[in-house]
């Protein structure tokens, strides 16, 4: 089916696509959305033939669809891949959310009377980081916008958290996803993570909480004590320090003018130090150093003043400033409870048209949100492919998505995330099954 889309040359990156959205989505769900992969993922190995497989598992997962006109349907579930695929193709949801795996099929929840019978039993550990939470420290954009100057804040956040999730918590099956506009989501899918209670995932979320948000005073990050926790030390040394000094300072011109540097000076609790520095910078205003260097040079001066000061409250000021500006700002509520819904990967963001593609944490520096394929681009590619196929007469029925720009993302999803995850699930299922067998054999002994 050919859709009326501008030819590639005339296509603008962020063209508004309202009005055609439902039709575009139909093609998207028909040819591009990786239904089978999502099914395999959500099954966690239970779709196999092994006796340990729980056939009811997939059916107990909540899906939620947001349809056109903001109609919102929760507690959907499907008993197999075909049902799920058909429902998505038929309803063309603008957004698909993944919920928890419940104790019983979500649609049947009312049939079970009394408390505690319909409850979440498994759910990935998830995190949501949104650029708009950084509005007070980025001067290039605000609100819904994102650019190459501020996106690196996300990169820094991914690095800090990915390392901690793997090294500190011991998780391995971690999926980072672009949220489609201005943030990232993280899905931790290890069995141990899925089985965390609300209290435990709350504890993990709090472990990551450094930035306390706006309080009465200006100080939002506060480090007391003669030493920092090893996690904070590592984050600072490996990621945040260099990011702040080499990237953010110059790109956001954090110390270039008074309005900007006052915000940093406000974080310092000592009047004498700040006024001394302010005087120094005021008098140097018409220096001949280029704009870039001003920020770095001033930072060195400030660091020196703080670190050599004998004042007590200034001991950790440098780190506090760096963390205030660069440390990941999580939306804590998303992580704390099992029943919190989160958008599924590979959805299309309705405002930008961009697909929510996975991000490789090992190469997150290279990720550019502006280069993520949009729905209309992808459809244009499909049309081109159709045209080519119509011209040539090679009848090779390749999977269409594979040759679009979406291809590399789906391939990455499979090789880097899904396959290792399923392998591990298989081992886990088989392992616990044989353990159970052994147990029952032992108990039969006299």
């Amino acid at each position, binding site marked *: 089916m050919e859709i009326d889309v501008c030819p590639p040359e005339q296509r603008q990156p962020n063209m508004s696509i309202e009005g055609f959205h439902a039709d575009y989505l139909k093609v998207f769900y028909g040819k591009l959305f990786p239904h089978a992969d999502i099914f395999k993922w959500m099954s966690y190995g239970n779709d196999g033939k092994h006796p340990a497989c729980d056939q009811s598992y997939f059916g107990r997962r909540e899906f939620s669809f947001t349809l056109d006109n903001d109609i919102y349907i929760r507690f959907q579930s499907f008993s197999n891949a075909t049902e799920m695929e058909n429902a998505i193709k038929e309803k063309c949801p603008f957004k698909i959310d993944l919920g928890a795996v419940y104790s019983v099929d979500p649609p049947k929840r009312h049939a079970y009377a009394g408390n505690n019978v319909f409850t979440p039993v498994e759910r990935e550990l998830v995190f949501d980081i949104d650029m708009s939470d950084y509005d007070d420290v980025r001067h290039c954009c605000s609100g819904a916008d994102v650019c190459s100057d501020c996106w690196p804040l996300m990169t820094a956040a991914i690095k800090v958290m990915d390392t901690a999730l793997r090294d500190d918590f011991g998780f391995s099956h971690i999926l980072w996803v672009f949220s489609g506009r201005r943030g990232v989501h993280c899905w931790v899918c290890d069995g141990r993570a899925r089985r965390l209670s609300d209290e435990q995932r709350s504890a993990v979320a709090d472990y990551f909480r450094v930035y306390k948000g706006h309080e009465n005073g200006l100080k939002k990050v506060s480090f007391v004590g003669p030493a920092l926790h090893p*996690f904070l030390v590592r984050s600072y040394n490996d990621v945040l320090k260099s990011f702040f000094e080499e990237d953010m300072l110059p790109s956001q011109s954090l110390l270039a003018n008074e309005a900007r540097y006052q915000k940093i000076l406000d974080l310092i609790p000592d009047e004498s130090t700040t006024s001394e520095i302010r005087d120094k910078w005021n008098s140097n205003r018409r220096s001949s150093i280029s704009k870039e260097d001003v920020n770095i040079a001033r930072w060195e001066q400030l660091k020196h003043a703080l670190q050599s000061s004998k004042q007590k409250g200034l001991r950790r000021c440098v780190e506090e400033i760096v963390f205030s500006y660069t440390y990941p700002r999580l939306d804590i509520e998303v992580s704390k409870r099992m029943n919190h819904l989160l958008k599924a990967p590979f959805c299309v963001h309705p405002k930008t048209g961009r697909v929510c593609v996975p991000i490789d944490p090992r190469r997150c520096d290279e990720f550019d949100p502006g280069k993520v394929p949009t729905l209309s681009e992808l459809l244009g590619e499909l049309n081109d492919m159709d045209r080519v196929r119509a011209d040539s007469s090679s009848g090779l029925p390749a999977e269409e998505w594979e040759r679009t720009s979406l291809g590399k993302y789906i391939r990455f999803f499979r090789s880097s995330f899904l396959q290792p995850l399923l392998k591990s699930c298989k081992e886990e299922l088989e392992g616990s099954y044989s353990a159970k067998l052994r147990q029952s054999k032992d108990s039969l002994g006299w």
Partner: protein
Amino acid sequence: MEIVRSNRKSTAAAADSVPALSLYRSAPSLEVRLEEFELYAIDRLRVLKGISDGLSRGKKPDEMEKLVSELWRVNMRHQDANEVMNKDIISHFVLRLVYCRTEDLRKWFLSMETTLFRYRFRLEGSESQRALMTDFNLPYKPLSHAEYEGVKEELSQVARSIGLPHNADSMFFKVHFEEVPELVATRKVFIQKGYAYVAMNQVASLVVTQFRSHLSKALVLTNRKWMSSIRDQEKDRLTPIVEAMSSSYLGPDYSQPKESTEISLKDIDQVANSSFPLCMRHLFEKLRETHHLKHGGRMQLGLFLKGVGLSLDDALAFWRAEFSQNVGSERFDKEYAYSIRHNYGKEGKRTDYTPYSCQKIISSTPGTGDHHGCPYRNFSEENLRAALRRMGVGERPMEEVMERVRNRHYQLACTLTFEAVHGTSCDSGVNHPNQYLSLSQRAMQSKVRGSSCPLTISAVIGDPCVDLGPTHQPTSPSVG
């Protein structure tokens, strides 16, 4: 009580071979006399309410430790050393029945029992703590020397970051991070590859988390059992006791006033000014002002005065003197005298009514023209401030009082008022207007005597205070 699988903890062979703390894993298969059933539970409830009070007053951990130790010692002792453990276990399980019945009750009970356990565990020595951990079968593993060497740098870093000394000899335990959510959340442990490295002095957290999670689950099960079988089966025996216990007021009922607090009519204005709590002061003032009070006010003030020691004759004279200025003495005799006599148990079914506790007063709902109820709850902020100022509460304590009022801790607000007005601390808190008055009188008499009479914990449970000898009336106007 269910049949117990392992009765390791139920009967003590010798007091020292049995650990002092119980995890209350299973109900004991002991026979309990019905009186013990109720009494043991009430004693434990005093401990839990004392803890609740301490927590809402924002006591720091060391203060809580002392408080718990004192509350336990006073309320949970028993002549027979063997019985101490039984009392502990029995009272816990009885209160489980009482507090399993709604979500709010469960939350409260879980919170208090966990706090109680936490501090009792802290009070044990580290050898004893380690023995308890073994008993409790907790999923921890002591670090091998090699493992320790591998992470000792980070362990020391963590210790310094939370301001604790890092002792190279201190024992560390390796545990899945899921077992210690509190420590993970506050970054008080080093974690690596999913394991948390917990110091001996943090072990209490481990144990407490286990305790809490186990009790939480047990309470839900208990509730199911209660609803499905116990409540019905025991409807003539235990159920009425259980249902009454959770809302009971635990102090003395002041129905039989002690001699030392008897007052006479000539002193009443003075005593009202110096020693009445705000609720009674307000009623008294309104009575003096308008020579009338509506029914709610007459009950609240009238019974209070009875509890203070006003005799029936004096009461009749008092109310008559006031009301006759409003409605005339004939109408008083016809319409109001009867109910005063009724309050004193001299009419009708001859019930000797007991003065209202704070709980009862706070929960009353005065209407237009009423002046009863709890002023901390009912007065506007402006009126409350004005009233407290008239009582002599200074600006600083005033703010603290208002803070408690905003958080709906009315009794705490009254306690703070007491402390501000009398210049002494009131550790037991105010639970009853008559208690306020007797504490006030005591505080003033000790001032007059020139020494301070320390308030002991026995004030919490309403034991008679130290005998002050023959009734001592202050000869000068109230000492503020």
